[in-house]
């Protein structure tokens, strides 16, 4: 894609790499004879479905795992990385999927952690630290994050950017590894990140970029390696790689169309969420249809829906179920009346990792599998087995701990949990976030099945192709309000995005700041001394 940069790279000695590495976990051959070289000024994309072994390769480069065979090289010499610190000190830093920031500390404190500027032995130079962080953030183009902000007050996406800033801040930085950094980012934020990566590339750093989104690969990658079942099944220059071949390499089969059309009849209105003002359109969900709720992160979609189904205090909207107004004081009440929810943060709000698949699936349907509080001996496993079979959840047994399942299968378990409560309306909050391509199709198929069964589906999503591909109608939110409704036919990517950004074409597009500014109303409002006070 970026042929111009390649001249810089040409003939460059690899800065780091893995050579013929192997890794087994308890008999599972996780990584088989993988060789990947990272060259200066080059963005190397590593793609593959979940479970393909990408993260294991990353961990070998990051010093988390040691290869069973083969070796790791950094700076042209073979090295044995004993721990992540080892890798860091050799100039290889990694942004893992799990963020490693300390929530109670400020951005500056986090970024400088372990490399604090000092006035003297053990005496912190706080002013220098703040200044240094501010310069770093400015250099990376993320000035809207303030050095004095506490990390816990930032959104997930902003935390991600801080994490990256921290990773690239080290002295002698040569190699940056990013493990699916965009999983929680919106399009605009992704652009910010890409700009950042391009700057790193221009500085001659080598980047290993793990993703399962092909669009990103095309936008940012120079070289691509595809992994499947632990082995490299494709590698080459991005410019020479055809998208269909990459997909086939990833999943091992053809995917004709990611989004599957429905032809079930649409019934009467099952759920309606009123606007807070006269001019705010109500969200109407009818039986048998998928209604998309699109917006950038911070637009308030999850917040709105959470308060409507009782997870958060009411926000002034009214929910009508089958025409009757309802005010739920807890998710329990909502579920009882037929509104089920699959939450956005699968790990934090969805699964109970220490419980088996069966209990996780049956959690919302305990009354149905018990009498007077006593569980019937077979009902729960039977209920769970039915869903495992009908949703083709891949698990050795319903007694398996859910934490051992892949992301896509965990998600299917959560959808099964919602279904077990036999809801009229289902709210899916980012149902395919962190789910690999193959499982995504199954989730879509599942959504279509919900419709075919006459349930109404409200799908919150930040994935524009998904919103357009799956929805009968799309509502767009911005700054906490619903700002428009688009039918399937009028919903082009352009039209939806314009609504989401609030951009009157074409002039306002430039004037409008990124959505992040709107996520935090205080940004841009001068707060005298605010930063100094906190720092």
């Amino acid at each position, binding site marked *: 894609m970026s042929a111009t940069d390649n001249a810089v790279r040409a003939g460059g000695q690899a800065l780091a790499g893995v050579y013929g590495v192997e890794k087994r*976990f*308890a*008999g*599972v051959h*996780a990584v088989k004879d993988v060789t990947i070289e990272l060259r200066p000024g080059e963005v190397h994309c590593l793609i593959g479905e*979940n*479970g393909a*072994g*990408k993260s*294991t390769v990353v*961990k070998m480069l990051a010093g*988390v795992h040691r290869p069973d065979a083969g070796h790791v090289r950094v700076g042209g010499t073979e090295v044995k990385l004993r721990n992540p610190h080892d890798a860091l000190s050799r100039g290889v830093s990694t942004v893992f*999927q*799990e*963020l490693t*920031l*300390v*929530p109670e500390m400020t951005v500056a404190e986090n970024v400088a952690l372990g490399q604090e500027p000092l006035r003297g032995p053990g005496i912190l130079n706080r002013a220098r630290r703040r200044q240094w962080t501010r310069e770093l953030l400015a250099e990376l183009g993320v000035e809207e994050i303030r050095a004095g902000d506490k990390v816990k007050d930032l959104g*997930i996406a902003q*935390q991600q950017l801080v994490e990256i800033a921290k990773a690239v801040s080290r002295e002698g930085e040569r190699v940056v590894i990013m*493990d*699916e950094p965009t999983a*929680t980012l919106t399009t605009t934020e992704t652009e910010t990140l890409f700009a950042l990566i391009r700057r790193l590339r221009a500085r001659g750093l080598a980047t290993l970029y793990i993703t399962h989104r092909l669009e990103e690969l095309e936008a940012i990658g120079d070289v691509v390696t595809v992994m499947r079942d632990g082995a490299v099944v494709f590698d080459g220059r991005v410019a020479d790689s055809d998208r269909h071949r990459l997909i086939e390499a990833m999943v091992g089969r053809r995917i004709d169309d990611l989004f599957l059309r429905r032809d079930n009849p649409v019934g009467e209105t099952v759920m309606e969420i009123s606007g807070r003002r006269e001019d705010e359109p109500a969200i109407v969900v009818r039986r048998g249809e998928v209604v998309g709720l699109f917006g950038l*992160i911070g637009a308030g*979609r*999850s*917040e709105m829906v*959470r308060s409507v189904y009782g*997870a*958060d205090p009411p926000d002034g909207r009214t929910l009508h179920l089958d025409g009757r107004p309802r005010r739920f004081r807890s*998710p*329990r009440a*909502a*579920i*009882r009346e037929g509104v089920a*929810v699959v*939450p*956005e*943060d*699968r*790990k*934090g*709000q*969805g699964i*109970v990792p*220490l*419980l088996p698949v069966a209990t996780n699936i*049956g*959690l*919302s349907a*305990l009354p149905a599998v*018990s009498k007077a*509080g006593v*569980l019937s001996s077979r009902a729960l496993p039977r209920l769970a087995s039915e869903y495992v079979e009908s949703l083709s959840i891949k698990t050795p047994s319903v007694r398996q701990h859910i*934490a*051992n*399942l*892949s*992301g896509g299968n965990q998600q299917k378990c959560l959808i099964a949990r919602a279904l077990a409560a036999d809801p009229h309306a289902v709210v899916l909050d980012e149902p395919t976030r*962190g789910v690999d391509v193959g499982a995504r199709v199954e989730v879509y198929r599942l959504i279509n099945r919900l419709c075919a069964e006459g349930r109404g589906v409200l799908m919150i999503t930040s994935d524009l192709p998904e919103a357009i591909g799956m929805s009968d109608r799309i509502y767009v939110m911005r700054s906490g309000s619903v700002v428009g409704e688009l039918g399937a036919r009028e919903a082009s990517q352009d039209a939806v995005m314009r609504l989401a950004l609030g951009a009157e074409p074409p002039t306002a597009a430039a004037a409008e700041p990124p959505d992040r500014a709107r996520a935090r109303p205080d940004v841009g409002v001068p707060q005298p001394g605010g930063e100094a006070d906190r720092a």
Partner: protein
Amino acid sequence: MADSAISSPAQGSRTGSLKGLPGTLRRAIRQQGWGIVGLPLVILAMVVYFASRSDVFLTVTNSQNLARTLSAVALLAVGQAFVILLGEIDISQGAVVGLVTVTTALAVEQFGAVGLLAAPLTGAAVGLVNGTIVATFFVHSVIVTIGTLTVVRGLAFVITGGQPVTGNFPRAFTWLGDGSIGPFPAPFVLAVIVIVGAALVLRYTTLGPKLYATGGNEEAARLAGLNIKQIKIVAFLISGTLAGLAGMILAARINSGQPNLGTGLELQAIAAAVVGGMALSGGRGTIAGVALGILVLTILQNGLDITNVSSYWQQVISGVVILIAVVIDRLRDRPRRGRAPAEPAGPASGATGAAPS
């Protein structure tokens, strides 16, 4: 999240090679880890050792004595288990024991055997207060129960003026302390009933999954439609009620009400639960494990007593055993996920469940 299909190396390495073991045992180890055989082995080793050092240890009298001693702590530990499953803790148990000996002694003196009801009722009342405050105001149970501990202990002294409650108690009361059913001491029978009952409740009633789910991921449980407040209150209610029963059998044993009785007993109960594999962070552990934990600590104490180890050294040894047990438990648990420590620290999974985005 990626690669979770292969991120369970520990499942395998932890349970390693299981060839040559009977099928049931193999399955149990695979599901629960080595802890399920570790504690019985420790118990067996202690029994063999103490039996070789003392002729008295394996006698019927000593076994009965041991069974009688462990009853009160067992009741407390089972109660504690319900609370710890939620990731909470009940520090007030020891004080409840003190108050209960007083209220029960007074009630029995006044009303005869019916007065025994005062024990579970007093305990339940304190449990209800604990649970309601914890569940309603989101205050951590450590501080809530330290508060009620102080109040409850104070009340015990207020009621009695600091004096023990003595009197002519009916046989039904004293029998609970020194009576027997067949060869089994009465308090031991009560403890066994409670242990079995608790295990059945966790396994066969909806309270089981509710407790495990809430302790394992509170926000997920809430969004799945569970009544978190009710679940927390019930857990503390059970802990308080069982503390009441423990107070009852202790009062019966010393045949009086002692306002300062039970000090520190809650710590023994917590230790037994944790030694038995309960995770203080919630969501993990079994009553069977807790029962084994109780056995380990009580047999150790009894054995040291019988082999004439000084009581000062007994404390030191008990403490060391607890530390070893929890460290082993921690090691066993650690590699279950590739990056265990990242989990609770993750910004998106705060226990308060602040919603991102």
